[in-house]
């Protein structure tokens, strides 16, 4: 990392700012979970969006990506993101491909009968 004392001093300000943001956003996440945004999926999406924003703050400022000039690091992140996306497609390949009953019955709940009881 380049920079003498002056640069690092500026960074320290950024670190403290991000800390405040993260703390606030944590509280926001908890409060948002108490509000019903329509469906469970909507709540989950909002929680994940806030988490993603928090994560990008950590990555950009704490992990110095905002100042990162090394192209190989960006390539690493890009390739990783691509394959992470592939990995996250696994549930949709399984669960949405087959009716739920065919793979697994869950818990002690009777499987839903097509057309109702």
């Amino acid at each position, binding site marked *: 990392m380049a920079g003498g004392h002056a640069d690092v001093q500026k960074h320290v300000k950024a670190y403290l700012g991000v800390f405040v943001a993260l703390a606030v956003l944590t509280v926001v996440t908890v409060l948002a979970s108490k509000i019903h945004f329509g469906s469970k999926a909507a709540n989950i999406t909002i929680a994940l969006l806030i988490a993603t924003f928090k994560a990008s703050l950590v990555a950009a400022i704490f992990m110095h990506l905002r100042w990162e000039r090394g192209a*190989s690091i960006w390539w690493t992140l890009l*390739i*990783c993101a691509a*394959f992470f996306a*592939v*990995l996250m497609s*696994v549930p949709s*390949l*399984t669960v949405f*491909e*087959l009716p739920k009953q*065919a*793979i*697994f*019955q*869950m*818990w002690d709940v009777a499987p839903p009968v097509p057309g109702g009881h």
Partner: protein
Amino acid sequence: MAAHDHHTHDGHQTHGHGHPELGFWRKYVFSTDHKIIGVQYAITSLTFLFFGFCLVMLMRWQLAFPGKPVPLIGGLFGETMMPGGVMLPEFYNSLGAMHGTIMVFLGVVPLLVGAFGNYVMPLQIGAPDMAFPKLNMMSYWVYFVGGIVMLTGFFVPGGAANSGWTSYAPLSVVSQVSRNMWFTGQTIWLLGMVFLITSSLLGSVNFIVTIIQLRAKGLEFFRLPFFVWAQFVTAFLLLLAFPPLEAAAVLQLMDRVAGTSFFMPTGLVVSGQQGHWTGGGSPLLWQHLFWFLAHPEVYVLILPGMGIVSEVIANNTRKPLWGYRVLVYSLVFLGFMSFIVWAHHMFMTGMGTRMAAFFATTTMIISVPSVVILTALLLSLHGSCIRFNVPMLFALAFLPMFAIGGLTGLPLGLPAPDIHLHDTYYVIGHFHYVVVPGSIFAIFAGIYHWYPKVTGRKLNEFLGKLHFWGSVVGANLVFMPMFFVGMAGVSRRLYDQTVYQHGANVQTLTQISSFAAWFFGLSQIPFIINFFASIRAGKKVSDNPWEATTLEWATPTPPPHGNFPVIPVVYRGPYEYSVPGASRDYVPQNVTA
């Protein structure tokens, strides 16, 4: 914890050759020198390869003569494995599972990546060592411990893991499990995998950083030997594909030991009894996580081999490789595609047509770069003056053998024919063609090619040719019949095919495979003798006996600590053979004009 030692590496050694002489243990056992570590990997993995071969020889007796006592050594195995010398089905299954596991994870990959990659790659890029020498040492020892852990499975009650190298749930979760005794072979397999995967991950970080950061001056990416490119892409595959299997292994461990139900469906009945798992899990989840790794893993098995074969072909045709850039782009594309074809191993799990079509399409697409690479290597032969030395013989044989392996994969990658061929001997024939006369021949080529750099002596040519011809004939006789046995409907992992009429009909073919396996095994004897005898009695050679262009031949023999007395500067590409107007038929990369 092993995962964090990547922070440590050799400090600034500004002392050159003035540092104190290391004792025996630091120099030869706990060495951080990539060459020693490469040799350690080679010795250990060749031993495991031999052991894995012995396992399958036992299996081949049972397959050829089902129910007959194993001659000579049958009595050694005791009542739990071979009562009266006759192999029990459970033991057959253990042999099968461990043969696959040992060959893939303890044999071929550590040899291709750990041995060849470690020894040759830093030399070929003009580096003094790997980027993280201590991490490199750790990778080896974690692999070694993982191997020992795997082997202990044979010595615990219940024997070694017996659910295939694929360890599919729910069988792998219920196998050998009881509330009182959970430290069984199947559990040990999972523990061993955690070690092996960790070793691989640490190693792949090292390889990638070394290739990116430690190339000699002038060695741009498109001047790298193709072997280095192959190791580079392979390292990325290992880095990103292995962790999901590590996660899955932890989940399966939890299922076995903590009674969780990650992979256990509700209501499972085993041998007439309700299991103690609450259920709610999915066996398919294991398959997805396993194959997410295991498909890129098969490319890990072949890519470094292609790299070795490329080096040997360029050197012994005295010509540059045909289509270097095309080769590199195909390699990178292949690496990328390898992550999105995995479910072609799962066509028979009841997946819908949409998903099957997607994976069949990607599988067909991935065959294109493989064919491009093979074609480029074949075209590299055209118009050349081939030197038919032993490494070149193996490299040449690799080409059609890999072609057969690859082509026989095509019907497996299409859902419709896969219905008939899935889980039959056809599959076994397909992948063994790629791995045995494919990867293993490439390994042999590499050993004969680089032995003079490691030892200063050449391996004996006559013994080498005996080894070669025996291996080529033997391998084909072992694996070619398997395609027909499979098409006749004989399933794999089957202890006795003669209980079925369709199996009994082709029993002769199975016996041919078994006899040929002996022939193949005996053909390795000249090689083993050669390997050890030539250390002392082999013909002494110069630093560059093959008159090669790549940087590893520019070092003293064997290369000293630090490799290059003077760090080389690179002025040209890796395959400047038969350059018009040059004084010799090869111009090394580090030579100016």
